[in-house]
């Protein structure tokens, strides 16, 4: 039984599709009807200046530019029928086991699907290039990618002159969910000259041990929680009370997309208030 499970796990890992994958028929001609299944992918299309081609978005999309567009469900549970009813000539989706059957079905029914992972900064950069190319705006895609790469290089350079800061980035207090290793948030913290004290965690979004958080003595605690529930209790704890508490500036740092560069600059200024411009 265990051997069977392990071999299944290995097979699963071996079939890892990588960050970019096309499903279904190849997109043809100029794409005019694009459906996105995640807000981050909507951000990419908007940043490419192709917002007028969007005909449907996920129910989590909040940008005013897409407020009037039909909703086609969420990242885990897109409605195949709602997507197909919009007659898309391209569907942009983040791959995941929850939506795998749904996006495969869209592809089988004749909708070209571009799967774009957005787990790391490299993924985001690759997604900008790929989306630019498929939408016939390769120059804009390349510009977005270069811009993010340049911002990273510049901030890394400036961070070298600063003393490393021990940081805990908190997504939620009850339970304590923090930014662990292996995701874009951890990468950007490192770029900005921070040491992520939760880098020993198991995943990018772990439920973290409160006692481990105390012991790790963060100097800065970045609050990215949706609700203040449980914050006061955590904030009163020894080892955390002495840290500098700061709200994550804006949403730019929380969603993998073209705004990550801006988020990185804000993060750097926040962590190193003394650093010159």
């Amino acid at each position, binding site marked *: *039984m265990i051997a*069977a*499970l392990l071999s*299944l*796990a290995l*097979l*699963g*890992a*071996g*079939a890892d599709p990588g960050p970019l994958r096309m499903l279904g028929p190849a997109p043809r001609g100029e794409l005019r009807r694009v459906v996105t299944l995640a807000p981050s992918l909507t951000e990419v299309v908007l940043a490419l200046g192709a917002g007028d081609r969007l005909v449907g978005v996920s*129910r989590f999309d909040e940008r005013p530019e897409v407020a009037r567009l039909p*909703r*086609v*469900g*969420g*990242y*885990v*549970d897109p*409605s*195949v*029928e*709602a997507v*197909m*009813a919009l*007659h898309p000539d391209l569907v942009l989706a983040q791959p*995941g*086991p*929850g939506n*795998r*059957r*749904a996006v495969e*079905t869209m592809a*089988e*029914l*004749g909708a070209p699907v571009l799967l774009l992972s957005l787990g790391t900064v490299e993924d985001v950069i690759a997604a900008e290039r790929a989306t630019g190319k498929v939408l016939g705006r390769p120059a804009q895609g390349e510009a977005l990618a270069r811009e993010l790469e340049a911002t990273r290089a510049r901030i890394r350079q400036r961070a070298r002159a600063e003393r490393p800061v021990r940081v805990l980035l908190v997504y939620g207090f009850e339970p304590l*969910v923090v930014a662990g290793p292996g995701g874009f948030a951890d990468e950007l913290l490192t770029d900005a000259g921070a040491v992520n004290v939760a880098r020993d965690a*198991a*995943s*990018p*979004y*772990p*439920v973290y041990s409160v006692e481990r958080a105390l012991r790790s003595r963060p100097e800065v605690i970045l609050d990215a929680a949706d609700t203040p529930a449980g914050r006061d209790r955590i904030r009163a704890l020894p080892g955390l009370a002495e840290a500098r508490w700061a709200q994550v500036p804006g949403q730019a740092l929380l969603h993998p997309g073209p705004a990550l560069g801006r988020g990185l600059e804000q993060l750097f200024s926040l962590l190193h208030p003394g650093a010159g411009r």
Partner: protein
Amino acid sequence: MTTVARPLRVPLAVRFTPARASLVLGGLLALAIVALGASVLLGEYPVHLLRALAEPASADGRVLFGLRIPRAVLGALVGASLAASGSALQALLRNPLADPFVLGVSGGAALGATLALALGLQALAGPSLLAFVGAVAAMTLVLAAGRARSSPYAALLTGVVFNAFAAAVITCIKTLLTPDRLGEVLTWLAGSLGYERPRTLLVGGGLQLLALGVLWAESARLNLLSLGDDEAASLGVPVRRTRALVLLAASLSVAGAVALAGLVGFVGLIVPHLLRLWLGPDQRLLIPASALGGAAFLVLADVATRMLFPLFHAEPPVGVVTAVLGGPLFVWLLNRGEHPA
């Protein structure tokens, strides 16, 4: 709740006759066909039926044959399986609270699927496959325990204990998961009808026909078994063999249903009880009636989830709808049944 244990006081009106059975089953079949029709006709995509039938390769045709019909068939298969197995298990275990998941099948299936989702097994339809493996493993364990002590309560208790154990392990796995994976596990556990390939439906349908066929074939002996083991044995029923056969068929059927649709709750409890209130406890009629009624109920509940999409911008899991619709309806009918006017 002594409906199961009073087969000897069946009023004349609910006695089994071929004419009455054909009438009841015909009516339920018609209901199931209406439900399937609604499921094929209603949805977010405006399907032009004539165009779809004339040109299967058109967009309308692909939605009809690629989405609507497979999903309706899946709902019918899962609903029939859960309700018929529920009816058989309630009779076999002489417990009106028995539902298809009580024999550890839900715990085993959920554990398998959660493991698959946690390990990120996207290939080979990981969650469904491991759910089936987990359900069959749990069922084997429970059957072995039931065989060791020849009493229906041993199987029932082992099932309940195994489900609690599995729930604890699942909770442990959940704490180790990232929020996006957690969402997938929760959606899976709530039970929902997706889009399966025709081949999968064919295999699943074959399994269900076989299992439900066995249950129906054993239904007369199941009636006698509800009198008690000794009484049934004195009437010539091979008690152990019948019990093992019914447990095996019901559990395989439920394992198949769970692998296809996750844990769709309530269907296996409500549908057989509703039909028992109406038809009496004769399994010869109840098992096929439950299969047809369960198919109709789940397909209609699935139509409701699709109708809710414009409201929520999401389809709620069909298990939620079966519980929300079925719970109050059941309580109302039960109270009405216990205080006849």
